[in-house]
């Protein structure tokens, strides 16, 4: 039997905006493979974005209050529209989207997105069903040429990571959206990555069972 918590998360994933528009394997033949590093210039800066969204949301709340005030009634629910949640969501998004280096392995059937100091995002294009995870549930799906990873966690925490790539493969974007059930505004952080040649660093490290992790000087081969 599925635990009620996990069933709830599966249900939550299914009930949040549906992005599954095509069931084909990689319908637009998108290739994300390669080594990517963060482009700080084009990426959102978390603190700035939090400040901007905060100001925009504050203005929206004030406008709403003014509009409702003009009608002589105030219906603002502070649980659904409060400013502190912007900061909380923003900080959480910042933690989730912290990766600065990506290594993407992709073939016709699946993709593995290895991220530094983070877990690997894996999608099997032939089996893109919502499934139970260690806690909560996960699903990957295509939205046209964008690949989406969604995670539903307890307490209504929902994380969506949307990958897109420029046609000339010069940039790859991961838009991380954090949403919490009951809070009106989700928070999205865009992190843009550019290609780079790995192995040019000072060290080249390899992990094997026999030798564990061994690093040698002079990375390029």
């Amino acid at each position, binding site marked *: 039997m599925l635990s009620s918590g996990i069933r709830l998360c599966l249900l939550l994933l*299914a009930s949040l905006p549906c992005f599954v528009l095509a069931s084909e394997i990689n319908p637009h033949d998108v290739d994300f493979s390669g080594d990517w590093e963060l482009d700080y210039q084009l990426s959102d800066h978390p603190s700035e974005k939090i400040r901007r969204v905060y100001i925009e949301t504050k203005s929206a709340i004030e406008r709403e209050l003014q509009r409702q005030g003009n009608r002589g009634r105030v219906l603002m629910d502070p649980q659904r529209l409060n400013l502190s949640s912007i900061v909380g969501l923003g900080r959480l998004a910042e933690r989730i989207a912290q990766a600065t280096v990506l290594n993407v392995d992709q073939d016709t059937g699946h993709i593995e997105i290895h991220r530094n100091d983070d877990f690997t995002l894996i999608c099997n294009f032939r089996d893109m069903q*919502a499934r139970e*995870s260690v806690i909560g549930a996960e699903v990957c799906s295509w939205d046209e040429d964008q690949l989406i990873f969604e995670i539903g*966690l307890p*307490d209504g925490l929902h994380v969506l990571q949307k990958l897109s790539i420029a046609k000339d493969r010069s940039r790859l974007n991961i838009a991380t959206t954090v949403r919490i059930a009951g809070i009106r505004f989700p928070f999205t952080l865009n992190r843009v990555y550019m290609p780079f040649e790995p192995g040019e660093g000072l060290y080249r490290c390899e992990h094997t069972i026999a030798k564990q992790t061994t690093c040698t000087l002079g990375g390029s081969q």
Partner: protein
Amino acid sequence: MRVLLCLLLWLAGCTTVPEEPEPSVLAVLVAESLALDVATSGRGGLNVNIRVFESDQTTPGSIYLAAAQVRSVEQRYLPYVLKTTLDRSGHWGAVRVVPRNDPSAEILVVGRVVVSTGVELKLHLRVVDATGRVWIDQVYHDVADDIDYATDPNFVIDPFRDLYHRVANDMAVVASQLNEQDHEEIVNTATVRYGQLLSSQAFNRYLIPDGQRVRLTGLPAADDPLYLGVQKIRESEYLFTDSVDAYYESLYRTLGPIYAWWRYYSFELVMGNERLAGIDATRGATRGSWYAMERTYKTFKEAKMNQDALRELSESFDRETAPTTTEIAGRVVRLNGTIDTQYEAWRRILAEMYDEEFNPER
């Protein structure tokens, strides 16, 4: 349309975890703190082969649904835990983990992982001797609690050790009921069945089917060259099986500590889920607070990273299986590939060598 898609997605999600019918055999819930029955004296014990366990693709109640690599590890890891338990009991001869069915094993243990989480382990085990006599066909079920995990800060001491003790004790009870003649019959039948695998023509006549079992009608003369050849090849097989067993031991030692942590995560999270208040991933944080949300995500991330480590190591094991070089009858044989492939190739080479020696006209 969107509502329909959502409903379909949800239903599709549900189809990944169908209700699997339980095996028809009675499940034994293992009592807590069951001591291992250790042999105090001994005639030479029978040799035991434990085949790598099977695992349900979709294990009901398991948190491993999306983690084929964890299943792959536990299919090889859990039999080795049973092997070490049987070794410690002292009731048996050589106990080996093997990748394939071995009808010529004196005692063959085959198992299926029915449920495996940090909280619960349910194994369906079938123990059969070479004559086809079924010793055990049983689902063993054990549930772990906080105390099981509290004994070792690294969680390497198996929280389900009572289950393995129970299996070992049950096997020891059956073994203790065998008299010398039964014992000899099993050993001889195993040798003849091994001969049958090499040359059915020469050895079929010594065995006749008797229902689900086989009965030994006689034995070749002790100095029969075919019989001596079989025994010689079997000795080589044992040497090879020992190196296969060493592979599983290496997996047990390297992946064991990681698997143990993973199992503990599973325990913590499954229990947390059941306890309430969502996972105790929040560990004391007020539910719904930002701190609690961050803790929940952090726990998820840690568990996923652990899963990554387990997968990478498991894949490394398959990739890095060292070639085995061994010698038989003056001929050096080098085997490459996964352990499964090596085992298969070894079996084929032995049959070929036997044919070359005893059936040169074929």
